């Protein structure tokens, strides 16, 4: 993976004044996601983009811009672990949809970072609902590999990609089986062959471009996965497929694996916990959408947490580009179905950061963490709550989106100013 430090350095040079700003969020119920727990009447001080101090007795530095939380909640920003934000503007308009490339000759090597558009209008509408970080996922195309994923901030800024080449995504579910030729046997055979190509890189490709499953360029892109340098995110739902995935991981050390989908993961919870394989699930997924997911249940999240599986939540049942902003509601429903509030909130903040290996910078409020801070007017998992302030990398972001502009334009239907002149 590539941490884009150079981009940050450029920002530091060009936006020095903004980064030098100091904020103090005061009078909040501060959820730290650390051993400090929840601090009532707490203060969070952010300076030069990072969190400087968190606590009940923190002094507000002179000259700090004070944001009075007014008794509301102050939390780390939400980290949405499975999205296509900035990849899709209008899903059904293919000209605006860069999530997948069914006609490409490449697969593993495809990098969502090249498709990401920080100016997409769904980024502000997601940010103002408290999401500050997201993982970007490619859709699969002509084979079961979607390509490389990346990590982004929701700042909308030119440097909002903060890590590229974060993981490789592959679909080994029913749909992946279809892509591979019609059966799970075909899908796992393809995956084995692809790993063989990557393990045998370069020698296997010295004489020709074609390996057993992948062409040279894609095989090269899979090498870091085979070496355990990048995690392989596998989309599977059926319990038997998850067991097959665990076996694959065990047969291919040092491969790191993340399960996405996981409708029946709760049925394999102990094995997943023992294998240390994290799971991305949508906690509100409870209908048997296919014969892969007959075990879907609203109790899945609590069963996985109880078994000690590392679990982060997604909005898979909705979508990943328009509805990623509803992640807090999905987490709230997990609480309604047996998950502790702390576990559910961590599953949309700190745990995604852990799964992607960035939890020393994101997902908690503590000194040295990035200044991703959200102030809420109530419990962030409640459907009637909303953020009042969103800071990303220590800078306050505006709370406007294309949607709020449309709302403001049509609020007063009796005003005689023609609508197109109202801005």
């Amino acid at each position, binding site marked *: 993976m590539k941490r884009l430090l150079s981009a940050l350095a450029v920002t530091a040079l060009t936006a020095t004044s903004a980064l030098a700003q100091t904020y103090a969020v005061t009078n909040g119920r501060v959820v730290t996601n650390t051993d400090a727990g929840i601090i009532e009447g707490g203060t969070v001080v952010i300076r030069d983009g990072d969190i400087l101090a968190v606590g009940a007795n923190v002094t507000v530095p002179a000259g700090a811009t004070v944001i009075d939380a007014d008794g509301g909640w102050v939390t780390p920003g939400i980290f949405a672990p499975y999205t296509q934000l900035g990849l899709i503007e*209008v*899903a*059904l*308009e293919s000209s605006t949809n860069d999530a997948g490339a069914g006609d490409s000759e490449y697969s593993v090597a495809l990098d969502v970072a090249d498709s990401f558009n920080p100016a997409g209008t*769904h980024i502000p509408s997601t940010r103002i609902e408290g999401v500050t970080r997201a993982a970007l996922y490619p859709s699969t195309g002509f084979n079961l590999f979607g390509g490389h994923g990346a990590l982004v901030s929701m700042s909308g800024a030119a440097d909002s990609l903060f890590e590229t080449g974060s993981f490789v995504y592959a679909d080994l579910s029913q749909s992946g089986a279809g892509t591979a030729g019609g059966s799970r046997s075909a899908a796992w055979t393809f995956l084995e062959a692809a790993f063989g190509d990557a393990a045998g890189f370069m020698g296997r490709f010295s004489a020709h471009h074609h390996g057993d499953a992948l062409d040279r360029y894609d095989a090269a892109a899979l090498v870091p996965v085979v070496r355990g340098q990048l995690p392989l995110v596998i989309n599977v739902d059926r*319990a038997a497929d998850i067991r097959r995935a665990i076996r694959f991981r065990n047969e291919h050390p040092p491969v790191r694996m993340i399960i996405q989908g996981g409708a*029946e993961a709760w*049925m394999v919870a102990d094995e997943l916990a023992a294998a240390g394989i994290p799971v991305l699930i949508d906690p*509100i*997924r*409870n*209908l*048997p*959408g*296919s*014969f892969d*997911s*007959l*075990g*879907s*249940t*609203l*109790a899945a999240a609590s069963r996985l947490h109880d078994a000690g599986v590392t679990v982060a939540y997604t909005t898979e*049942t*909705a*979508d990943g*580009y*328009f*509805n990623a902003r*509803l992640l807090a*509601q999905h987490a*709230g*429903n997990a*609480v*309604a*179905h047996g998950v502790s509030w702390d576990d559910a909130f961590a599953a949309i903040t700190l745990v995604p950061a852990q799964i992607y290996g960035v939890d020393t910078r994101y997902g908690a409020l503590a000194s040295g963490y990035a200044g991703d801070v959200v102030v809420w007017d109530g419990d962030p*998992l*409640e*459907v*009637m*709550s*909303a953020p009042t302030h969103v800071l990303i990398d220590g800078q306050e972001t505006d709370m406007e989106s294309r*949607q*709020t502009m*449309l*709302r403001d334009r*049509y*609020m007063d*239907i009796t005003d005689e100013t023609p*609508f197109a002149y109202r801005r």
Partner: protein
Amino acid sequence: MTSNFLKASVGLAAVLCLAACSDGGSASSGSGGTDTADDGEVVRINLDPYPSTYQPMSSGTTLIQNATIFDGLGGQVDDGDVLIEDGRIAAVGQDLDVPDGATVIDAAGRYVTPGVIDIHSHLGVYPSPGVGAHSDGNEATQPVTAEVWAEHSVWPQDPGFEAALAGGVTTLHVLPGSANLFGGRGVTLRNVSGRTVQEMKFPDAPYTLKMACGENPSRVYGNRGSSPATDMGNMAGYRAAWQRASDYRDDWQEYWDAAEAGEDASPPRRDLELDTMMGVLEGEVLVQMHCYRADQMAQIMDLAREFDYQVTTFHHAVEAYKIPDLLAENGACVAVWADWGGFKMEAYDSIRENLALSHANGACAMIHSDSSGGIQRLNQEIAKALADGRRAGIEISEAEAWTWVANNPATALGIADQTGSLQPGLRGDVVLWSGNPFSVYTRADQVWIDGAMAYNRAEENTQPVRDFMLGQPGEGDQ
């Protein structure tokens, strides 16, 4: 306590059977007859050839005490009681007497509402699992298929029904999809388990006609190189079909006039497609129309004037907030999502305040799901819509917002005299919530349909499990 229901508790019989309740002689184009007749008899069209065989489950007398009550009409009773007797709402108030033999439930700290109504569902016609064999919601073979009926596609074993029940849904309206200009008839169901769809059909609920605007029909048929391929093609398609329906109605009327006058007359040839459309022109079949954009809804309202029919409800209507004045003038309701959108151009201008703004500006507005997931949490959907509206400065009470899942969809389905509020005499469709249903943490504890306990969260024996789920990994899980 605000109380709409005290003044509304009498005179129920006078309340709408909005149009054709399909029995009881209220249908004007000839009810109760058959389409065959002996010589000399006037040929009539049988308007109810697939009648409901719904029978309520057995019920006793239930008194729920000390609850916060939203009555579904905008009223709230604090520390109130609801009495359900003989399958019907018997009384709502404070400190009601305990009838002999009543099951008494202490609901202190909890909330009671009328059962949730979803006016836009595809449960049964696009069931779970989503296999090809059960993909029965769109007869996308030609753009005008007013002759197909959703009830003929409903698979009663869809496990989505019981998931919706756990979310408090007692009545749902199942529609054909939106591939076609005229998609076919919708059907209103009680959310009960049945071996047949007839056992689920809401008795005497009016039929509806699903129509669709915009991108779906023009994409489906345009991609095949046939009409409609454009918005103007859509409009031409509606107009041509309505003209045929209008002529058909004239032919039947001419025949009935002559036959009833004892003249020698031959009935027109039956046309199942035009039967449904004639029902709309007669005001017996309610139009439920998929439409997203403001300008498209305005075109459709002109179309309805041209052919003299009423659009009962625009569904999705993501731009309703732009034209609440036109909607109110035309008496058209809107059934919307709280916050979905973006997935196609006509959904691009979705805003979270759509429901609250449309409501506040005078449109008859309600929530809908169009989703096997969303239908399970319509209380959360209206909570989001309410909160977003309030943040924009629109003052709406929780009790008023509850009309969005209760009396408003009941009215738009022509069943407000039967369900959708807690008026005495109405069906005993009641939800007891674990707390305030505007909270994400609240769940339905118990759900009554026609006074019978259809769902009890605390008792597995009172949680239906469809045939399909027997022996499957998720059997009995919610």
